[in-house]
């Protein structure tokens, strides 16, 4: 299956996230999830980025929280709401919000 996973929290129990598998897996950071794409804690990037997946971060939510595209980890693609609709319809068939 092609599965798109929305992550809206920075702090959450990641047991479910860690377990999710799919032929094609996408992780979309929105709301406070965007901190996974931008901040380092004690110099370390988010462990969520270690999963084998395509990563996206919502531009509007990055900016809401004071970040620019240049602050985003190189593994993460910045998308707008407009882009996100295409990602949802073209790249994934099932979507979940953790």
């Amino acid at each position, binding site marked *: 299956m092609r599965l798109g996973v*929305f992550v809206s929290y920075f702090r959450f129990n990641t047991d479910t996230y860690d377990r999710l598998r799919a032929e094609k897996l996408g992780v979309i950071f929105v*709301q406070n999830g965007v901190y996974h794409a931008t901040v380092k804690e004690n110099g370390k990037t988010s462990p969520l980025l270690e999963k084998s997946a395509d990563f996206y971060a919502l531009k*509007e939510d990055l900016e809401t929280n004071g970040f620019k595209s240049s602050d985003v980890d190189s593994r993460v693609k910045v998308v707008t*709401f407009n882009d*996100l609709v295409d990602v*949802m*319809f073209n790249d994934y068939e099932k*979507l*979940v919000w953790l």
Partner: protein
Amino acid sequence: MGKLTIGSFTSLIGSMSLDFAVKLAESAVNKGYKVDFWVSGNATMLGKKNQSKFRDYSYLAKTVQDLIATGNFRFCICEVCAKARGIHKEDAMEGVLIHSMDWYLASCFDADRVLHIGGE
């Protein structure tokens, strides 16, 4: 073009998940998709009429009404969730549908994509 069904529980203002969901719906409708938007739990507050606009509080009522006016957007609140919160038929905004939870499942039936926004 396909149909997107969005379901959300999270409260108006107190959570910005509903702001996210409304903006996503708007983008999808603008691109020509049909969107069904189901709100239950605290999200039913978004169906209440007479919400006031202040700078310190997000305000989604206008966008929802504009989207309803396009004809490609259905907005439905959970009847019993709303009543439990004191939101009855006469308290609802114009154009808002009020149904039982089965409406949401029926919408999922012929949806091409479903985004169910659970959480707290």
